[in-house]
């Protein structure tokens, strides 16, 4: 069955069976022996056993090699469906059992429809299908759950492992009983707090998962539980929030919210919020606190549309009252403030009402002045959330908010002050987005107008932020994840510069001039940091004169300043100068042929400095090289050899592992290679064997500790990445290609050895490099296929590290284009794996669209030889097309995914159609054409495809006509896509859509006129 990772809604159809997503398991054991059933134990409820015809194999993707298929109901492991494939009918030893099964004949076609959803309609009705119903009572165990839960937290590994195993078994054998005992455990005030907490945690994990698909499965599983079981669990949970034990209350709150997140959208558990609100009036503060916390979590879990306004009003009233200074209990106030943070998204209507908004804002602002630090921090977090959710409602509060935040930034504890700075960063984000949408056209009627809060606050805001820059920590540059007042302040200053542009320059310059030469390193660093922060945003005209003056000073500071922090920030600032004020897109660059050499000398020298400074110098070199990306004669060319040697030296430093120095050096090396010109091509060619040697050395290293191995892997990844860049560079031009071809054999040999190391990043990099190599080598790549194929297959099977799988799929495309029909011998293997991948729910969904595109690549490469895959690929494409065209785009992300999928499917159709063009077998595609057209029609009617899909879709329209000729014309006439959609594309502003549309129009005109 095809699995694309859409929300399970797609399964929701009339039949109860169809609502169950099934996991397909396959095997070769003799399933007709009675013991086979026992394989799943007496606890298994086998709903039905189907004997299936060969035809159904389509839906299970190339399962011919297997003898039986077990389809599990993933929400209830006790429900399984067994499918037997017909080949077995002829096996003597099992014939007696077959008789047994044959006797349970039923309306099997109906069931098959229910089960598969994607069963091809051409399934032969004449073939008998048999089914039997085999039911068992679920096993109800009575275990001492408390002890197991405690053991599961034991220090002793064996005890712990055993307990975990028991829990897992219990869960698999009888989920309802398992969940029920956990909730009883959690609710029981007699039980130890540790077993209660773990019980709650397991409950929570049984309801939610990070991974989207897993999450959807858990939701379905919960919904399919017996109602009485669910209501028992829920009443246990509600009871727990009144418990005197804080941990038990808090855990229960979270579980309640998870259940609410599942049930409220289904219009179930509608009484929940009312019953919680009734708790608010209880006098016991701990109940009140837990209730507010629960309400907060619920708001975090469910979307605002799910709760009606009346209930929202009641929740907000309870929450805001709880925040009010009149509430005496601090814990209640903290819980209420945090709850408000989550409830803000529900308050659309309330924020549109002046009186209600004033009230909420007043309470929040007052809370920022509370004597309790936790309340102040939570209140500022609310302000940050308000700044992005209700930006357009803030105008009348900005003066007050400025005063509050300024006070907090200057006087409060760091966590509170950081939130106060974050408020301004968040306002910048909003205004940058709005101004971006304006696109410089200020008459545009954007949804949200820009209030220019930052511009207005500028004179006071900038000095406040500049003050924070002086509050550095001693070791901040050595620590990757460091975050403090100075860093937050500089980051905010950078955002302010992007928001207001030129206006910031005169406000910051005096600070820089005053501090940059001071004896205290903090002042020099802060001045440099301020300078670096404002380099993005203001116009080059405004900045270039300043930078021209400062450049020499910076270069000197990088060489001579005694303080590492100052040098670190100076090198970073130089990088920012090169990033924003140098490059072919600018009219005047701050870099001239004259100062380029001086800059280079300083950077190369600085690369020998302490690791954090050297890392920033490498970064600066990266942007210096990038600026020459599109220029024909780079002034770096005369120093090319020296640059490369210096970077290689950096990678060999003993301390290159610190401050990600080695990575930075390789990144710069890559960029230097990417931007190199023809004149330096011989040096790049010479670099190739050097990097190959480095990689070779890493492969020779033996007996490494796990720590050393990890470092080794990282290095191999970097080297493969570097080789990839070199290959792509040299392979792109005919003149340089020749020089590098002599190394192709050795490079390939190295890559194959790299695959022997088990490390995802290394595999990914090596795969990418091989793709580039295949493209450069072309048809001759065939000689490496025998050695490479096992790793290709391995990559396609790597579901765990799905990035590797995705890259490998892309490499299959490269191979198709390089080898063309020479790829045929390995196509069976690749196609089987690709189709399996499409059916897998283990594989990350982002890999599925490229797999479809890859089917198109294969078809285009092997042409009519694709015939034998049609019966597998086409049904897959059809069901995917259906799922993707009716995808419920709940959010932008889902819509984007649906569009990627559509694009992939269409590229597959395109490749298949073009592959069959001009061959006698074209008529094989005829049966699929109406569906493809229907898909295009649906896409057109849904009106939510993006430009890329539009281009591919209109191209497919042309491909249909081009390949099927006059046969397509009848269908064409009935399709809106071929008329309105085509017209729309023909008048598109996007030249690539227009071009595709013109091609389609021509192809159609040829087809209908034959």
């Amino acid at each position, binding site marked *: 069955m095809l699995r694309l990772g859409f929300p399970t809604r797609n399964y929701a159809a009339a039949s109860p069976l169809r609502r169950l997503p099934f996991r397909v398991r396959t095997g070769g054991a003799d399933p007709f022996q009675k013991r086979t059933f026992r394989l799943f134990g007496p606890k298994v409820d086998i709903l039905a056993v189907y004997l299936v015809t060969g035809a159904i194999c389509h839906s299970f993707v190339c399962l011919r090699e297997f003898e039986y298929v077990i389809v599990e109901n993933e929400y209830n492991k006790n429900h399984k469906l067994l499918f037997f494939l017909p080949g077995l009918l002829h096996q003597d030893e099992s014939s007696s059992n077959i008789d047994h099964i044959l006797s349970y004949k039923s309306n099997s076609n109906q069931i098959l429809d229910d089960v598969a959803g994607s069963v091809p309609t051409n399934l032969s009705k004449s073939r008998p299908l048999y089914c039997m119903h085999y039911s068992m009572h679920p096993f109800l165990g009575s275990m001492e759950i408390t002890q197991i839960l405690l053991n599961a937290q034991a220090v002793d590994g064996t005890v712990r492992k055993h307990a975990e195993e028991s829990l897992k078994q219990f869960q698999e054998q009888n989920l309802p009983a398992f969940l029920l005992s956990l909730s009883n455990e959690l609710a029981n005030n007699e039980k130890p707090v540790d077993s209660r907490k773990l019980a709650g945690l397991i409950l929570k994990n049984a309801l939610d998962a990070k991974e989207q698909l897993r999450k959807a499965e858990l939701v379905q599983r919960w919904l399919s539980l017996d109602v009485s079981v669910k209501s028992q669990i829920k009443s246990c949970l509600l009871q727990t929030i009144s418990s005197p034990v804080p941990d038990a209350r808090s855990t229960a709150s979270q579980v309640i919210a998870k259940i609410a997140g599942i049930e409220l959208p289904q219009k179930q558990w509608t009484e929940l919020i009312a019953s919680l609100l009734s708790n608010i009036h209880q006098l016991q503060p701990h109940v009140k606190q837990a209730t507010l916390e629960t309400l907060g979590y619920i708001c975090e879990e469910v979307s605002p549309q799910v709760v009606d306004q009346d209930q929202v009003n009641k929740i907000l009233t309870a929450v805001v009252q709880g925040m009010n200074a009149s509430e005496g209990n601090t814990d209640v106030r903290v819980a209420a403030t945090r709850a408000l943070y989550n409830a803000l998204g529900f308050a659309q209507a309330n924020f549109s009402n002046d009186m209600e908004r004033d009230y909420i804002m007043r309470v929040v602002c007052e809370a920022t002045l509370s004597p309790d630090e936790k309340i102040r921090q939570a209140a500022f977090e609310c302000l940050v959330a308000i700044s992005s959710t209700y930006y357009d409602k803030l105008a009348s509060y900005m003066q007050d908010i400025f005063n509050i935040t300024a006070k907090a930034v200057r006087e409060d504890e760091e966590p509170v002050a950081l939130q106060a700075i974050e408020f301004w960063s968040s306002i910048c984000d909003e205004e940058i987005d709005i101004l971006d949408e304006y696109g410089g056209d200020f008459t545009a009627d954007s949804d949200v107008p820009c209030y220019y809060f930052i511009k207005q606050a500028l004179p006071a805001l900038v000095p406040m932020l500049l003050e924070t820059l002086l509050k550095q920590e001693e070791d901040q540059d050595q620590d990757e994840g460091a975050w403090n007042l100075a*860093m937050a302040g500089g980051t905010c200053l950078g955002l302010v510069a992007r928001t207001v542009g030129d206006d910031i320059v005169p406000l910051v310059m005096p600070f820089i001039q005053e501090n940059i030469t001071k004896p205290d390193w903090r002042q020099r660093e802060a001045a440099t940091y301020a300078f670096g922060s404002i380099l993005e945003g203001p116009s080059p005209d405004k900045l270039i004169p300043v930078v021209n003056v400062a450049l020499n000073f910076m270069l000197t500071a990088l060489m001579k300043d005694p303080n590492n922090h100052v040098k670190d920030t100076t090198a970073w600032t130089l990088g920012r100068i090169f990033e924003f004020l140098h490059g072919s897109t600018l009219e005047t660059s701050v870099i001239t042929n004259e100062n380029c050499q001086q800059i280079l000398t300083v950077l190369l020298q600085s690369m020998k400095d302490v690791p954090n400074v050297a890392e920033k110098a490498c970064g600066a070199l990266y942007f210096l090289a990038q600026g020459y990306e599109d220029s024909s004669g780079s002034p770096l060319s005369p120093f090319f050899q020296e640059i490369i040697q210096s970077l290689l030296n950096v990678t060999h430093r003993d301390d290159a592992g610190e401050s990600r120095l080695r*990575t930075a050096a390789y990144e710069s090396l*890559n960029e230097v290679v990417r931007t190199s010109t023809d004149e330096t091509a011989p040096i790049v060619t010479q670099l190739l064997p050097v990097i190959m040697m480095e990689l070779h050395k890493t492969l020779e290293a033996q007996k490494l500790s796990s720590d050393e191995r990890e470092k080794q892997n990282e290095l191999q990844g970097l080297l493969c990445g570097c080789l990839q860049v070199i290959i792509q560079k040299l392979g792109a031009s005919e003149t340089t290609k020749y020089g590098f071809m002599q190394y192709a054999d050795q490079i390939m040999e190295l890559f194959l050895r790299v695959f022997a190391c088990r490390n995802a990043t290394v595999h990914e*990099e090596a795969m*990418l490099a091989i793709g580039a190599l295949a493209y450069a080598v072309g048809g001759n790549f065939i000689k490496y296929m025998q050695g490479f194929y096992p790793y290709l297959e391995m990559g396609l099977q790597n579901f765990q590290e799905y990035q590797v799988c995705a890259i490998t799929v*892309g490499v299959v495309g490269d191979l198709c284009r390089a080898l063309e029909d020479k790829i045929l011998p390995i196509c069976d293997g690749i196609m089987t794996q690709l189709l399996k991948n499409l059916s897998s729910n283990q594989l990350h969904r982002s890999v599925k669209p490229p797999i479809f595109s890859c089917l198109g690549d294969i078809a285009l490469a092997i042409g009519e030889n694709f015939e034998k895959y049609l019966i597998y690929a086409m049904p897959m494409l059809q069901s995917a097309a259906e799922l993707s065209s009716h995808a419920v785009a709940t959010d932008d992300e889902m819509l984007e995914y649906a569009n990627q999928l559509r694009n992939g499917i269409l590229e597959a159709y*395109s490749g298949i159609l073009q592959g069959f063009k001009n061959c006698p077998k074209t008529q094989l595609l005829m049966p699929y054409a109406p569906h493809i057209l229907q898909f295009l029609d649906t896409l057109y009617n849904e009106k939510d495809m993006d430009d890329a899909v539009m281009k591919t879709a209109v191209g497919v329209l042309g491909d249909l006509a081009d390949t099927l000729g006059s046969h397509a014309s009848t269908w064409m006439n009935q399709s809106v896509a071929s008329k309105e959609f085509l017209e729309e594309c023909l008048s598109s502003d996007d030249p690539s859509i227009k071009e595709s549309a*013109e091609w389609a129009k021509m192809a159609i005109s*040829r087809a209908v*006129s034959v």
Partner: protein
Amino acid sequence: MPPPEVRRSIKRSAVSDQQRRRELALLRQTQQRSDSQNRARRLASSVFTLSSSSSSDLILPDKDILTRAADSEEHEAHLDESVAPARELNVVQASKLKGREARQWFARQLMLPEWMIDIPPKLDRDWYVFARPAGNRCFVVSSNGTTISRLRNGSVLHHFPSSLPNGSRTRDSSGPASSYCVLDCIFHEPDQTYYVIDMVCWRDYSLYDCTAEFRFFWLNSKLAESGACNSPSTYHRYRFSVVPIYDCNQAGLHAAYSTSMPYTKDGVLFFNKHAHYQTGNTPLALVWKDNYCSQYFLDTDSQGLVPTQQQVVLEMQEDGKLTTSDDPPVVFGSLEVDFIQKSEFRAGNLLRFAIKDESVRVVDGKLELGDLQFISKSNRARAFADSYSKVFFQYAARHSPLKIEDIAASILPNLPDDSPIVDVEMGS
């Protein structure tokens, strides 16, 4: 303390080079997929078929076929037939041909209108009409940064830079370097302009199998876009121009026939809207002339004078039969064996004859020439014999020409769309 999730320190770079490598690789793959897709889409749709009568010493770009043929001498006799399907060249391959091969190949690429000897039905509905510019028909191919025009007999007229796609070596030409286009033109000497009367390929997309309706639509929307209609410049030696094309109703016919055009007229062309571009003679494109719209109503001889007797050019076949250039050829007579031997004519020679008016008969609407009088071998530059329709038209022109009034009469006067057929509501 780590920064909040949404906030990244300004000092930490936002994009990793690994991510960049991934994106660049994806970009490269997407680009290459789209390239192969486009290559496939352009493939085979622009294949021209060489006529089977072409000579076997043709230089084929496909070396395999040559080697295979050379391997076995005895197969040579069957070579023509056996490799015929492989003898499909597209215009890019053909443009690499040289000399005689090139001339032979290109001589067969033009669509040749028949002469109008009777009026096709539904002229107003199914046909276009336009005034034919006076001048030489030519086949214009732009590719590889140059443009070459070839006359009807395949010989080169001009070799020049143009603004057609890939028609000159300018850097900013849009589209891939391999792109090409093919136009059917008439070169009009007085204003040194190529008047485009049909579009055969445009930016690699073949229009052979498209209807005239579509081809003209495309021609009108694309040609100007390319800049080919601009005045001559360094990279654009000759101006190209479209001709006004009309629906063949009363107004259209009148416009084509009597309105003055920026060019000298040489007759009127009729194109069937639904016809594809078909090489060689076709009855779906027709040419018609009279003295008003053409200086060349009656054929002239080498001195430019109208001979007293009608002359025809016919091709001599192996068996001495004299035929027209039609497919299948129409036989108008034959030469006697001893005459052939004496004059050393060979099959395929084009011979000029005079015909005696009184010997000509029209039987069942078919023209029969009685007494053919040999005059001379035809001019070497000629590639084809006359077509049947031409002979017939010229005969008719001398006796009872098809007049513009006849054509106009066959077209119903057009009713305006809002013709005053008004429903009268009763009892109002």
